[in-house]
């Protein structure tokens, strides 16, 4: 379609340019606050400061680059506004001239008709003939002028088209976007090696602006390729000491880097905290919005819909709130250990894993796999329970296995509380097993010699047994089941889990929860303490386990499998001792 020289509003285009200048001011103000934070941090020293310093140092240069790109966009818009203004002025002049020409041509034609009639009369004079000649000359001049004006208009249409092209090209050139437009297509055509090199060379704020396809491609890379790539960007690194390229990847693609096997866990931790914090803020905002909607809902049907939305928003908020609280919740440790957000997948429901212990350096890593009814809302509770085992290990040897609270699968709802029968079936376990196996393989890929254990409770043991049976390469040292909801029949014995050692505990639980789950399981699942080949952990003693929970309410007389003073706690601590 031909360009319209009169289209658009130069004033509005200038307004866009002014708004971008205001945007620059906002970014400058934000950067000033960041500089204040850096200044305020002068009195902060130690290892915990290193990570802060490294990352905070990326913001000001990125902000400066963004401001420069806005400068380039402003220049394009200002140039374009001026061009459109000139073209519109010129268009108005041409249109006025064309109108005048048209009127003159009509007048000339009328006069010509009259003059020709007079010149054809019997009393015509030479003057009449000359008048016809003059009018004919004028008609020729007017036709030529009209042709010239049409040509001018056509040229103006082309000029406007050129101005539009220039503006469009200017707004999408690399000085404005950070990379050339269509670069995503170029990336897609690259080999894996070239692609990873190109991605690592992008500034973080530009990398963050890339299409989802870039993130998806990185996420699909094999762990060994990822590990070699990452190490090539400045070594394995640490939270405090790593390269700018590694930092850019963490901050720009947190959802990918946080769950990317082959990336060291300090980096995954940083990335996942970023993703989880972002999700938490969004969940808090969504909860406020849902509360407002519920408060304003009129009519029974609308109230019911709003109430369901509010319950869902509250549940999601609780899950994310508890997960991010894992960074600071009190633990039962004898000596403090670092914490790492090992995984975070922001779906419905959100899933994740939180470690107490450094997965990049611990000599032993243990995954704690919870059972039915568990979700991210239970993160701190399971972290504390895991830390009770670690406390025992610290008391025994001074060293503790890094315990990963793994809430990476959508566990079946608590049958007792909801009546939902999913816990009797294998679907949730099978779905969770593949994710668990992948996360365990991620540890194995980056830590080939680490001692890797799994402690699984209730339905978590069903999930874990499938994961371990499916992948012998995980080389699990100890597999501990506590109050198992049963092991599927296609994992016939302890040997089939490929674990070097398998332990199982089954207490005489109030209400017989685990036994109930096994009895009604379909297909039937076996009790790993009964002729399965696992070493049985005793549950009686001075503190006899009497409930299904891992940790019982301390105010009650109940005792859970991993409560202090139980043989199951001691047995689990020994089985997973570094």
């Amino acid at each position: 379609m031909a360009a319209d020289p009169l289209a658009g509003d130069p004033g509005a285009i200038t307004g866009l340019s002014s708004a971008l200048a205001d945007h620059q001011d906002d970014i400058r103000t934000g950067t000033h606050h960041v500089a204040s934070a850096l200044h305020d941090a002068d009195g902060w020293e130690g290892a915990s400061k290193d990570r802060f310093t490294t990352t905070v140092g990326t913001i000001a240069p990125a902000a400066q680059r963004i401001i420069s790109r806005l400068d380039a966009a402003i220049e394009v818009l200002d140039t374009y506004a001026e061009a459109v203004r000139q073209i519109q002025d010129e268009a108005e002049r041409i249109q006025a001239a064309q109108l005048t020409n048209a009127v003159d041509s009509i007048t000339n034609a009328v006069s010509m008709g009259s003059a020709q009639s007079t010149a054809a009369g019997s009393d015509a004079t030479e003057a009449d003939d000359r008048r016809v000649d003059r009018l004919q000359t004028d008609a020729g001049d007017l036709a030529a002028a009209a042709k010239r004006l049409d040509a001018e208009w056509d040229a103006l249409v082309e000029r406007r088209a050129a101005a539009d092209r220039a503006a469009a090209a200017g707004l999408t050139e690399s000085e404005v976007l950070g990379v050339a437009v269509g670069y995503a297509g170029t990336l897609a055509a690259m080999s894996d090696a070239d692609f990873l090199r190109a991605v690592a060379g992008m500034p973080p704020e530009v990398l963050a602006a890339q299409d989802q396809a870039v993130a998806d491609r990185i996420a699909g890379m094999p762990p060994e390729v990822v590990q070699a790539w990452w190490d090539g960007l400045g070594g394995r690194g640490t939270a405090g000491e790593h390269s700018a390229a590694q930092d850019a990847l963490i901050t720009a693609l947190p959802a990918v880097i946080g769950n990317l096997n082959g990336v060291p866990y300090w980096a995954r931790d940083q990335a996942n905290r970023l993703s989880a914090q972002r999700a938490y803020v969004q969940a808090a905002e969504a909860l406020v919005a849902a509360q407002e909607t519920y408060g304003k809902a009129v009519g029974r049907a609308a109230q019911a819909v709003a109430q369901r939305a509010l319950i869902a928003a509250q549940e999601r908020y609780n899950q994310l709130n508890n997960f991010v609280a894992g960074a600071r919740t009190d633990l039962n440790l004898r000596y403090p250990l670092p914490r790492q957000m090992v995984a975070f997948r922001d779906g419905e429901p959100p899933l994740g894993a939180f470690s107490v212990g450094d997965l990049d350096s611990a000599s032993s890593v243990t995954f704690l796999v919870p059972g039915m009814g568990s979700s991210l809302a239970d993160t701190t509770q399971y972290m504390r329970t895991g830390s009770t085992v670690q406390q025992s290990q610290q008391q025994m040897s001074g060293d503790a296995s890094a315990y990963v609270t793994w809430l990476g699968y959508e566990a079946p709802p608590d049958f007792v509380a909801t009546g939902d029968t999913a816990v009797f079936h294998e679907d949730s376990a099978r779905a969770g097993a593949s994710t668990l196996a992948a996360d365990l393989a991620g540890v194995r890929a980056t830590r080939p010699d680490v001692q890797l254990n799994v402690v699984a409770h209730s339905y978590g043991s069903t999930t874990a047994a499938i994961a371990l049976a499916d992948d012998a390469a995980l080389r699990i040292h100890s597999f501990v089941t506590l109050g198992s909801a049963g092991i599927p029949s296609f994992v016939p014995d302890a040997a089939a889990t490929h674990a070097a050692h398998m332990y199982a505990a089954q207490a005489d639980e109030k209400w017989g929860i685990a036994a109930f789950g096994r009895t009604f399981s379909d297909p039937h699942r076996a009790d790993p303490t009964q002729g399965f080949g696992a070493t049985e952990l005793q549950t009686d003693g001075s503190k006899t386990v009497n409930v299904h929970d891992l940790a019982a309410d301390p105010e009650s007389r109940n005792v859970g499998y991993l409560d202090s003073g139980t043989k199951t706690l001691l047995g689990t601590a020994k089985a997973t001792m570094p």
Partner: protein
Amino acid sequence: MADLTVSWSTLEAVHGALDKATGTFTGASLPAEGGASGAEEVAQAFATFRTAQQRSDEWLAATSRTLGEYAKDTKSLFADADDDLAGKAGGK
């Protein structure tokens, strides 16, 4: 954590400054083209630019927010030091 040297008020100030930065980056709005050019290809190019800019802004906000939370978490990670420092700071 023996190597930690920091006061409660320092971490409070760091968190506060980054909170302001996050708010500023989040609140920084970008204009929409809204038919100003009257030309489809310019409007599309502006939309491309705006999306890229918006994502870069989000990166600024997310990074600031994470660092602010990190400062906040640091206070809580060193519970003993926190209690001590909080006591000295007037029971904060």
